[in-house]
C-alpha cells in the first residue's frame, strides 16, 4: 500500500530537515525526542496487539493438529464434531463464494457511487449522500441480519423457490454491509486528488468523463484499492448477519439458492456450546481465517507496490 510515500518529500530530505531543526533548537530537542518516542509507542501498539492475538489464538488452536492432520482439517468436507471429524473445506469454499458474490455487485456500485459523489453530483448532493453512507455504516450487523431474515430471505423463497436462506441472500446482505467501507474510503481519496490535475486535464480539452477515467481515478488508485481490500476483509470477517441469512449447512452449494456455511459462521455458531477438541477446532478455524487475512494483506501490499512502480516508471 502506498500510504507512506509522500510526493515531494524524500526520506533523505526528511532526515535532513529533522537534523536542521535539531541543530537550531537545542532546548526543544528533549521534548521533541519524547514526543517522537511516544508516537513511536503508539505505532508499536499495533504490532503488540497482533502478536498477542496470534499467540493466544494459536495457543488455543494448534493443539488440534496433534490429533488430526493439517490436510484433513483444511480440505476434508466432513464436519461432524460430535464424531471427531473436523474438516473445514466446505466453509472455506462458502467464505470464498459469498465474499465473491458480495463484491461482484457492491464493488462496481460502490465505486461508481463514490465517483458520483466526488466528481459528478453537485457538491451539496454529494455531501448529503456521504452523510447517508455514514449512516449505513452505523447500522449494526444484527439489524442487517434481521432485515435480511425477515425481508430478503422470504423474497428469495417466494421468487426463486427453496428456503431462501442461501448463498444469494448472504451475498446481497454482505454487499450492502461493505458498501460504506468501499464508498467512504474511495470517495475520500478521489476528493483528495489535487484540483490542478483536474483543471489541467480539462484545459487540455479532455471531457469531464475522460478526466475522471484517465486522471482522477488513477491518481486515487491507492485509496480505491485500499477501500476494496477493506471491504473484502469486512466481507470475509462478517459474522452475525451472515449466520442469520445463509442457512449454515456444512456442504458445498449446488446453486446460488443453496445454503452455505462460512468460516466465521462456523465459529460463532458453535463456540457457545463447544468444548474440548470441538472448541480447539473452532479456534483452529479462527487461526486459518487469521492467516488468510494476513496472506491477503501481504499479496495486496505487493500488488499495490508493483502497480505504483509501473505507473511511475
Amino acid at each position, binding site marked *: 500500500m502506498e500510504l507512506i510515500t509522500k510526493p515531494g518529500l524524500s526520506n533523505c530530505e526528511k532526515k535532513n530537515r529533522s537534523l536542521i531543526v535539531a541543530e537550531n533548537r537545542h532546548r526543544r530537542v528533549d521534548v521533541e525526542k519524547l514526543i517522537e518516542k511516544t508516537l513511536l509507542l503508539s505505532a508499536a501498539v499495533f504490532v503488540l496487539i497482533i502478536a498477542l492475538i496470534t499467540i493466544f489464538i494459536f495457543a488455543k488452536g494448534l493443539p488440534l493438529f496433534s490429533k488430526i492432520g493439517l490436510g484433513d482439517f483444511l480440505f476434508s468436507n466432513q464436519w461432524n464434531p460430535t464424531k471427531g471429524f473436523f474438516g473445514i473445506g466446505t466453509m472455506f469454499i462458502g467464505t470464498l463464494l459469498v465474499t465473491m458474490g458480495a463484491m461482484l455487485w457492491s464493488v462496481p456500485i460502490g465505486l461508481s457511487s463514490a465517483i458520483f459523489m466526488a466528481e459528478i453530483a453537485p457538491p451539496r448532493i454529494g455531501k448529503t449522500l456521504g452523510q447517508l453512507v455514514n449512516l449505513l455504516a452505523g447500522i449494526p450487523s444484527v439489524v442487517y441480519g434481521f432485515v435480511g431474515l425477515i425481508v430478503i430471505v422470504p423474497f428469495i423463497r417466494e421468487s426463486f423457490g427453496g428456503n431462501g436462506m442461501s448463498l444469494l441472500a448472504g451475498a446481497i446482505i454482505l454487499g450492502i454491509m461493505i458498501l460504506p467501507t468501499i464508498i467512504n474510503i474511495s470517495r475520500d481519496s478521489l476528493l483528495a486528488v489535487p484540483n490542478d490535475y483536474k483543471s489541467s486535464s480539462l484545459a487540455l480539452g479532455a471531457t469531464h468523463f475522460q478526466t475522471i477515467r484517465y486522471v482522477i481515478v488513477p491518481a486515487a488508485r491507492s485509496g480505491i484499492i485500499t477501500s476494496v481490500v477493506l471491504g473484502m476483509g469486512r466481507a470475509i470477517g462478517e459474522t452475525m448477519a451472515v449466520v442469520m441469512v445463509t442457512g449454515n449447512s456444512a456442504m458445498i452449494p449446488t446453486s446460488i439458492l443453496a445454503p452455505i456455511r462460512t468460516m466465521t459462521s462456523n465459529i*460463532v455458531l458453535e463456540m457457545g456450546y463447544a468444548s474440548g477438541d470441538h472448541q480447539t477446532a473452532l479456534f483452529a478455524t479462527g487461526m486459518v481465517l487469521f492467516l488468510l487475512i494476513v496472506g491477503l494483506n501481504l499479496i495486496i501490499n505487493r500488488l499495490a507496490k508493483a502497480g505504483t512502480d509501473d505507473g511511475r516508471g
Partner: protein
Amino acid sequence: MGAVSIKDRFIYGLFYLSGLIIVGILVSIIGYVIARGVLVLNLEFILESPRHAGSAGGIFPTIISTLYLTLLALVIAVPIGVGAAVYLEEYALSSSKFAWLVNLTAETLAGIPSIIFGLFGFVFLVIFLGMGWSILSGGITLAIMILPTITRTAQEAILTLPPEYRENSLALGASKWQTIRKVILPFALPGIVTGVILSIGRAVGETAALILTAGSSLGMPQSLFDPARTMSVHLYMLAMEGISLERAFGTAFVVVVLILIINYLANLSLRRLSR
C-alpha cells in the same frame, strides 16, 4: 469542453443510478426498522430499566452501557490511533521495516473478524488478565477493533496535506512537533472526525465481540469493572432467544436514531471546523 456524447450521457446515467441505489437501500432499511420500531417506542421504553428479561420495561441501562463502552473505546483508541498515524506519516522513513510492519499489522487488524477479537478478549482480558466481563474488557476490545479505522483515516487525511504547508512551517522556524500541532493536525481534523464517526458506528453496532468481553448482564453498570449489555447485544438477545421481536425492533429503532444524532452532530462540528 466538447459536447457530451450519447455514450457519456449513458455512463453519467449509470453513475446517477448507483447513487440512487445507495439512497434506496438506506431508505428501505431505515424505513423498515423505524416502521416496526416506532410502535413500541415511548418515553418509558427509553428511561426505564428492563423487567422480565427485557420482555417488559425499557432499555435505559443498555443505553448507558453503550455510551460508557463507546466513550472508553474512543478515549483509548483516538490518541493511540492518531499518534500512530502521525508517526507513520511524519517520522518513520517510508522504507523502514518498522513502518512496513506497522502498516501491515494495521491492515491485518482491520480485516480480523469481530468474533476473533471476541475470542481474544475473552481468553486474554477476561480470563488471563482477570478483568472479568466488564466495561473495561469490552472497552479495550472495542478500542483494538476501531484502532485501524482511526489510524487509516488519519493517515489518509495527513497524506492529502500539500507539501508546501509543511515546508513553509518548517522554513519559518517551527519545530517538527509545532508543525504537526499547528498545521498538520488541524488540516487532518476532518479526516480524523470521519474515522471517529465510522468507529462510533462500529462500537455501537458491535455484538459478537462484546457478548464475550463486556458480557450480557442487564444491570446498570456502576464501575469500569461491572459487566454491561449494550443496545445491540440487547437487541440480539431479544431477537435470537425469541424473547420479544417487537422490543428488538424498538431497540433497533433507538440504535438507528442514536446513529442519526451522532452523524448530525459530527457533520455540524465538521461544518464549523471547515469554516
